[in-house]
């Protein structure tokens, strides 16, 4: 299952709530304001580093760019995808759960 999160973890608990519901093979994709949580050296970044030990974590590149976050500032292991990559992730997983 692909889990998408779109709220900033500094404003909403959805990232934590999502991370509590990952099963084997589940992946996390950060989009919209949620991409700010991918920055290394932050509290949500630490949660994601922990998550990366068992799951893949992705960030939508255009949303990073829009917020002036360069890939180099992301927690190591988070993969950046473009819109085509977003679509590919959706097709690669059997279902998508959006943590609105």
């Amino acid at each position, binding site marked *: *299952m692909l889990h998408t999160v779109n709220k900033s973890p500094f404003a909403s*608990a959805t990232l934590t*709530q999502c991370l*509590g*519901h*990952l*099963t084997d093979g*589940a992946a996390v994709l950060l989009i919209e304001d949620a991409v700010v949580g991918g920055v290394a050296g932050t509290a949500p970044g630490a949660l994601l580093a922990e998550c990366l030990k068992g799951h893949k974590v992705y960030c939508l590149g255009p949303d990073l760019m829009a917020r002036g976050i360069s890939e180099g500032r992301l927690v190591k292991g988070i993969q950046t995808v473009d819109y085509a990559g977003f679509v590919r992730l959706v097709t690669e997983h*059997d*279902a*998508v*759960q*959006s*943590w*609105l």
Partner: protein
Amino acid sequence: MSAEDGDTPGVIKRFLFVNRKAPYGTIYALEALEVVLISAAFDQDVSLAFLDDGVYQVLAGNDPSGIGMKNFSPTYRALDDYDITKLYVERESLTERGLPEDGFVVPVNVVSRAEMAAIMSQQDVVLSF
């Protein structure tokens, strides 16, 4: 759900409606309930999940009369008539909010967070509200 997307007509899919917001502050809870009732016409395998603030949707004793809104709690009791009987409430969400594991407006299954995660991963389609 239809022949148009390449599926054989009549195939039953597992649909999970995920409710994560408290009722009345936003329209999500009521909209989800309406979509669930409409979806019943399509004879699919429907489950409802209530977690995070969504657990407040199925608590007994909600009374929005003071804020000028229609109380849709009784409508959850009609779900049985629509053959929707799989309602799951997450235990940890209740505990985090200081809520007991009983006192719901409708019969529900209280499940752990791990069980809820498993239920989500078993679905063909997940609709989030």
